[in-house]
Structures are given as C-alpha cells and as structure tokens.
C-alpha cells in the first residue's frame, strides 16, 4: 500500500503500523513514484487543483505494468461531489475502486488550539455563500461535546456564528441519543465570525510567533527558515559548504523555551533569550565545581536536558536575529507607522502617501491590498474618490485583470465605499478601547501588547463577555455586522457544575473564518491573568495571517496547468 498525501499533516503513523503502509509520498503532478505495491491511496482535501494532480497521476500510470496498481481516494474531511464530478469529467473517476471520506474535523495543534485547516473557509462563507465549512465546524463541535461534555452556554456574534449554533441545536435534536453523561469541561462556547473583526488580521502581528508567521509563514506548526544562520560553526571548514536546503523547525509548546517566548511581544524576546543564555552557561560552568563522583554523576545526568535547552536557545536566537533584520528595516517601520496611524484613526479618510509610494515602487501587491483594506476598515469604507484613486493606481501598476480581486475584496467587505457617510470605527475604537497609548511590551497589562498598541477587537469581545458581559456594550455590538445571541443547553442536574471558589471558568472560542497567532497570544494572556477567572481554549477554521488571508481572496490569475 502506498499513500499519497495532499499538503496537511494528518498523522498516519498509526495507520501505517496497523496496515503495513509501505511508503508515503506527497502529492505532486507527473508519474507516480515506483513502489512495489498493490494499492495506492490518495489522501486529499476536496480541492479541484488537487484533483487535477491526481488525474495526471492516474493518467500517467503505466497500464501495462504488472501487477496493476489499484487506486483509492480518501477525502479529508468530507467527500466532495464537485471533486468527483471533476474526476469524472477528466475520465478517471472509474479508476478509483474506493472513494471514501476521512472525517477529520478539528485537528489539535497544541494543548489549547484546534484548527480545521480549511483555507478557503472564509472565502466560501463570505464570497460564495457556501456554508459547508460551517457544517463541518458544527460537526466538529458535536464531536468535541461527545468527548468533553455538553457545553451549557453558547454565545455568538455574526451570521455564521448564528448558523453554527442553529446547526448544533438541530443536530442535538435530531440525535437525542447524543445526550451524554460526561461532566462538562467547557463552561461556555463563544462563536465569532471573522467578518465581525476584519481589522485584526490585516495588521502586522508583533508577537514572536506572529512575526515568524508573517515573515516566513508557519505551515502546520512547521516553519522553513533560510539556512545561513543555522550553519554549524566548526573550525577549519571556513563556511565551505553552506547548507542550501531551508532549515525546517517544528514550533509548539512542547519546546520549553518556545512556550515561554512565543506569545511575547518581539521587543521582549531579546531579554528573555539573553537571560536564558546566562542560565545555561552557568549550568555548564557547574562542571568545574563538581568534585565528587556523585556530583559528576548528577551533572552528567542533567546533560541531555541542558544540551536540548542549548540547541533550542541557539535556534531561537538565530530566528530572532533573522526577524530583527526585518523589523529594524526602514520599510517595516514605515509600514507599521502607517498601520498604527490608521488603527488609531489618523488620516484614514485621504489618500495615503506611503501607500502611493509603495505602489510606485511596485511593492508586492498583497502588501498594498493589506494596507488599503486596513484603511478602508478603519474608516468604515473609503470615500468614493479615495477608493477610485487607489483602484486606478493598483490596476495601472499591477495589471487590469486584478479588477477581479478588487471585486472579491469588495464583496467580502474589506474594501468598500463608505455608505451613509458615517464612520463608526471611532465609536467602536473608543468603547472597546481598541487603541492603547501606554502599551507595555515587556510586562504587558493589557492584550494590546500583541500589536504594540492595538487590542484585537475579537479578543476584546471575548474579554468583555467574561466580564462584565455583553450587555454593557449593546450599542457597539449593534454596529458590528451580524446578530449577537445567547443559547443554553440544558444539562442533567447531576452534571451541573458547582463552582469552587477561585476555580476558573473554561471558555472555548471558535473563530469562524480564521484566527491569527497574535489573537491566540492575546487569549493566552487573558488565561494567565491572575484575576482573570477564565481560561480559553481556541478553535478555528484556519490559522491565518493578513497575507495568507488576502491571498485566499485573490482571483487565481494563472490558468490551470492542465
């Protein structure tokens, strides 16, 4: 058996052992690699691009070979009719003996983080009105409830949130047997639409993890970094053979140091790293003091741990250096200045010089779109004249075909003309305290540290829900798109929690349409606050940043390679 995987990190180790999977390959066009196997299984997301690759694979399979290999296809998380239809049109559908689905809804990424890794969820929900991903989200939540108990309270804001809550209630009604007797782990579920807070992902994240994602892109907890800084420094080799392969690192909380610095503002990372360096070198110095055999033995027993810590420190120092090169660049600074001006409400209603200059210098289009959209969102839409000006400049410089992308952004509400001539953003900003002037990056006392001044709206909503409750911000909630609501799910009396004094409530926050690392950091910060009283677990359709998000909304301009 050979399995072909589309991108994604489905853990197939168990499968491999149980079913004697011979080899695993990543999906790529062309002839399938030779493997002396009978069955070939494709694990794929239901996406048409991937179907084209598979078609290519199948068509190039050597029909004459013996034994002939059989094809099977497993869709993750659901079978898609569209894909099967597509395969049929290509004339290969019949080549698949089994077409099944692997219902993988929520994938755990960390102790407090679940993601569906469905890139197109936002696009589907808001551009195509396709709510399939919401259906999967609801199913995932049902599974979660089957495992961790019924969640007694559901809050939500936004149209999609409303849909998901409705579906959950419906599913519960349709499967009365699903009433379980597990003591509930979660007290509250908060469903948030991404389009309630379009602003946050557009801004540049300034936490350590957020910046790694912005600059190098974290894919399924892995990041690929330029290798130069990671070259092993050995004497005599004189940098002869520098590695050319990108350095691949896994990033998650299992790494002690990373767990400590990932959510810090980048400006606070340096001091932690240097402190750690001192501690480690002090620990290594210990060996000189070890006199007796017992002491030496103790030292040696600690060595593996110390060495792991040292290599982890070396890695993160290198990453921090790489990031620092970027964050100290003039352009990063200019960009950030403009973003912060917009977010604090300065000059959002006229054409911005920096954006114009960037267009003139042909900076990457996504960067331009991020800034223009940010300005539009911070001004509740741009004045028609300003919008037209930007549009013209973008089309003239980057090509007229981008009119399709601009149209998509307009549909998603990211780039739009101001209607009614009223700008609600200042009211929202003030009421929710979205802009904090006195931000403390080293020892933060507010979530605004994750964007060095801007407090993510989505997380502010979660914070205010916990205390003092949404009733205090009714007016602002009405200005944000979509309904807000509360639902209760009855628990049998035996399962109702009697709260001990000082015990934290647990809230599951589900971001429909994606969440950024900075928002996660902000929620973790709230969990750790001593007097917070609430712990947060985060679930989402996809981990995003401004770039990947805008990219998902852009029109694919190259025709398919087949």
């Amino acid at each position: 058996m050979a399995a072909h995987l589309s991108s994604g990190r489905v853990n197939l180790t168990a499968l491999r052992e149980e079913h004697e999977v011979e080899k695993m390959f990543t999906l790529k066009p062309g002839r399938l690699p030779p493997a002396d196997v009978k069955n070939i299984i494709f694990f794929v997301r239901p996406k048409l691009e991937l179907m084209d690759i598979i078609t290519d694979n199948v068509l190039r399979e050597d029909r004459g070979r013996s034994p002939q290999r059989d094809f099977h296809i497993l869709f993750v998380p659901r079978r898609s009719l569209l894909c099967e239809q597509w395969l049929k049109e290509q004339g290969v559908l019949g080549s698949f003996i089994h077409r099944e689905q692997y219902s993988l809804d929520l994938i755990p990424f960390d102790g407090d983080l679940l993601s569906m890794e469905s890139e197109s969820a936002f696009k589907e929900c808001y551009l195509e009105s396709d709510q399939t991903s919401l259906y999967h989200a609801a199913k995932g939540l049902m599974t979660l409830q089957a495992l961790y108990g019924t969640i007694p309270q559901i809050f939500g804001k936004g149209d999609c949130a409303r849909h998901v809550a409705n579906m959950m209630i419906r599913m519960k009604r349709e499967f009365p047997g699903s009433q379980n007797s597990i003591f509930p782990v979660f007290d509250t579920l908060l469903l948030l639409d991404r389009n309630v807070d379009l602003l946050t992902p557009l801004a540049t994240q300034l936490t350590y993890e957020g910046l790694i994602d912005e600059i190098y892109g974290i894919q399924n907890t892995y990041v690929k970094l330029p290798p130069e800084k990671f070259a092993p420094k050995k004497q005599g080799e004189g940098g002869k053979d520098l590695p050319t392969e990108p350095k691949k690192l896994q990033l998650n909380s299992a790494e002690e140091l990373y767990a400590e610095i990932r959510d810090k503002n980048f400006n606070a990372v340096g001091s932690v790293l240097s402190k750690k360096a001192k501690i480690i070198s002090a620990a290594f110095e210990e060996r000189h003091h070890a006199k007796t055999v017992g002491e030496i033995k103790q030292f040696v027993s600690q060595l593996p741990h110390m060495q792991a810590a040292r290599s982890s420190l070396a890695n993160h120092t290198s990453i921090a250096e790489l990031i620092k090169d970027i964050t100290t660049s003039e352009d990063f600074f200019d960009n950030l200045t403009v973003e912060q001006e917009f977010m604090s409400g300065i000059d959002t209603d006229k054409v911005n010089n920096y954006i114009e200059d960037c267009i003139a210098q042909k900076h990457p289009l996504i960067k331009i779109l991020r800034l223009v959209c940010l300005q539009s969102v911070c001004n509740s839409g741009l004045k028609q004249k300003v919008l037209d000006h930007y549009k013209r400049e973008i089309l003239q410089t980057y090509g007229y075909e981008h009119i399709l992308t601009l149209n998509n952004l307009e549909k998603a509400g990211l780039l739009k003309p101001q209607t009614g001539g009223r700008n609600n953003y200042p009211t929202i900003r003030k009421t929710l305290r979205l802009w904090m002037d006195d931000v403390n990056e080293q020892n933060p006392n507010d979530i605004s540290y994750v964007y060095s001044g801007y407090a993510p709206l989505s997380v502010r909503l979660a914070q205010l829900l916990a205390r003092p409750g949404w009733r205090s911000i009714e007016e602002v909630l009405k200005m944000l798109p979509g309904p807000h609501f509360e639902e209760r799910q009855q628990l049998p009396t035996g399962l109702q929690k009697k709260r001990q004094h000082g015990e934290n409530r647990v809230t599951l926050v589900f971001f429909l349409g994606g969440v950024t690392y900075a928002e996660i950091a902000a929620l973790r910060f709230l969990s750790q606050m001593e007097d917070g009283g609430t712990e947060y677990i985060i679930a989402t359709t996809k981990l995003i940043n401004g770039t990947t998000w805008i990219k998902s909304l852009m029109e694919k301009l190259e025709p398919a390679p087949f």
Partner: protein
Amino acid sequence: MSRVRADEEEYWHSSKFRAFTFDDEDDELSQLKESKRAVNSLRDIVDDDDDDLERVSWSGEPVGSISWSIKETASGSTSSLDGRDSSLQKGSSSYAALPKQASSYSLSSLFKGRNKLPSFQSLSDALTDTGVKSYAPELRRPKAEYKDYSSDWSPKDTVRRMQRGKVCSLERFRSLQDKLVLLDEAVAGHDGNVITAVLIFLKRTLRREILFRELEVRQVALCHLIHFLREMGEQKFLLDLLRFLDRTEEVALSQYREHLNIQDVEKRREFLKGCIGLPFSAEDTSHIQDHYTLLERQIIIEANDRHLETAGQSELFRKYPRKASILNMPLVTTLFYSCFYHYTEAEGMFSSPTNLKKTFKIPDKQYVLTALAARAKLRAWGDVDALLTTKVSCREPCWGHSPKYWCLLLIAGLFWSYWTDWFYSSKAQHLCCRVLQYFAPLPAQDLCWAGLAAAIRSEKGAVSEFCYQRDCSQPVPSPCTKGSAVGCVWWLWITLLALGEKTHFLVAGGIVLLS
C-alpha cells in the same frame, strides 16, 4: 490502448468466461470492458465488506451479460432501487437488488454527457452510461434490511442519509413540489455537498426557466449553483442564470474573467473588445476599456519591436536586448518600456510615452517617476535633468513646503531607492556624484536629510563625497520639523547605527541635536 487491449484479450481468453466475444459493436464494447475490469478487480476486493459491487453481481455469470441483457429487455425503465447495498449472500428477499454504485450517492446516474474513456470507466459508469437501469438476479433479503432500503424516505431523511454519506436515490422525487421540498431540506442542512447533489439533480430534471425561477427565491441554493457552475466551467449556463437574475455586473465580470483562459493574444484582444460593451459599473467600464486599448497597443509595439530587434539595425535593441515580450504587462511596465526604448518618439506614435500618458491619463507623478527610472537606467542624463525640472502637479501642499518642492523631494526619495539597486548591480560608483548633482536645486536642509539618508543607503563612500559638496554643517532651521527633518533624522540615526558608522553618526547626530 492497443497494448491494454492485448493484455485484456490475453486475460480474457485464458479465463473461463468465454461468454463474450470482442467483436461486439462499439456501444457494447465499453460494457464488456467494464465487466472485464470488474473481473480483474474482483480478486482484490472480494473480502471487502463495504463493496458488494462484484459480489452482488457475481453469480458465476459475467456482470456485463446481465446489464447487456437488461438493456435489451428493460430499456427505458426507471427504478428507484438503484444504489442499494445489496448484500446478497446475507439472505434473501423478494427485492430486486442492484450492484452498489461505487459512489455513495447514486449520483452517477444523474450525470450526463461525460467523457467516454472506456478504459478508465468503472462498472457503475458503464452501467449507467447506457442510460439503463440494471438488475442483479432477484434475491431475497432479510426483513430488517428491507426497512432500511425502503424507498419512502421523507426528504428530510434523504438529506440526513446523504449527509452521513449513505446511498440515496433522488429519482423518486418527481413532482416539482417534492423536489423543492428536498432542496429546502438540503439547504437547511447546510452541507454544501448535499446541496450540490440536489442541485445537480434539479438541474438535470427541471426546465431552466423553472429552475431559475425557484432558485431566485432560494439565495443559498443559488449561490451554490453559481459556485458549482463556475468551478465546472459551465460558462454558458452560468451566464444564462445571471442574466435571468438580472445580475448584470456579475455577468460582465464573469464573462471578463474568461479572458484569462485565452492564451492567444489576438483572440484575447478580440475577446476583450467584446467585453467593453458589457454592463460593468461606470468605474470598471473605463478600466476594461483601458485594458483592451493597452493590449491593442502592446500587440502593435511588440510586432514592431520584434522586427527591429531581429533586424539588428537599432543600436538600442542591440545594446539592451529585451528580456521579455511586453504583451500582457501592466500599464506602468509598458510605460517604462516605452520610456526605455521609445522615449524620443513623436506623440503621434503609439509607442511613444507621451502618447501612452495621454491615452491612459497617467498622473504626472507616476509618469515622471517611471520616466526617470527608465532614463536613468540608460544613463541619459540630459533627459533626467529635464524630468527633474518638470513641473509636477501635486495633490496638496505637504508639511509646509510648496507642492513643487515637496514633489521634488518625494521624487528624490523614490529616485534614490530605484537608483540604489542599479548602483549595486552596475557597480558604477563614479556615477554617484553625478546623480547627487541633481539635488542641487533643493533647499540645503531638505537636501541634507533626504539626500544624505539616501546616499548612505546606497554607498558609504557617497556620503563623504556628498558632505564635501554640500554644506551640511548648517543647523536645520525650525520650520521644517515634522516629517522631513525629524523623520529623516530618525532614519539617519537608525541607518548609521546599522552601518556601524560611528564617525558619521557623531557628525550627523551633532547636527541633529543642534536643531
């Protein structure tokens, strides 16, 4: 193909199933192939519980013969029984059982007009291909199963079953009313896959006008259908639908999108020409018009220049061969190109920059910048001189400067950043001073900051050169504080630090502190 056939032939003749000959007519051939395939694959899945396909039909008789004979006898008959699990070995029932479709919804029966590639088709394809319902031998099944396979699922149950990935036949929803109830149920379930399945069924079984009319009041379903049509490339159907809905702008954009699939430039141009008349919004119309005009120009320029280049008569083209064709490039790139190769041409020529500027109403600033970049790259310093003294219209006075100076300053900054790249690539260090001269007309203090900062960025050596040429020791007067002075000083500070230029840092820092 022939090789495959030979293999099959060999297999076939060596097997015990000799009921078939391969001289059948074409339409039957595919079925036979399928049955062979079924036989081939049988041994692999025979112990698989889920797939009863072959087990069902395999009763010592080749599968194809059944369907073949049924074609003769039962053509045109419809059945709602297809797609059932028919685990025949489990028991017996008076029910006619069918081979299970490989697809869990019996949707393969819903699709029409697929490509016929017999060698890749599965049994289920072949069976449905002929438009014939096929029957396995009559066998009985237990009562319990009977219930599960009863055909009177309500629309709600049908949808629910489909959501769970179970087999379902939609054919029994005959009346419009039934179909609409089914659609509404599917929409209420929010599972896009099921909605699409139902829509494909409706699309096949309803007249267009009725389908469109009903979808108009069912926005969610409508969106799914539009998405489906777009992805499957059923452009004509899609346009009909959008036209019916009177969503003219979407019709226009959707049609315009098509041009991306046209590789041939001439055809693309023709297509874009056709797009001009489409009902875009007022703003977009002018962009589409521009797009067409641009491509038209590019085709003319490309033909001309390719000729010039191959003829080898033009020195410019010999010295700087073109890296790529200008076709399908954005407007600003085209302008750069024309400033580079056709700067001196008369305005009447299509390829002249001034003509482009006029036709596309390119703003002064954009034009000057692009021209500067192009001319400086060619080291046509005379043109650069002229460009820098052009009057540039500016939006508004900035930071207390007159528009003219501000623009110059801006241009200087941008110019520098362009220039830096070439400087590094060409290593033409002596040009540095030459370029610095262009900033002579600027007021000393602005020049100090803008120019000096840029110069440091480009080359450390240039700084000292520059400092000699200009008197930078003058304290900066107070009016130009915001932006130009403070901004540049800040920038300077950072850059100098980054460069580790302690001496210059002290000099410049001193000046800053004085101001």
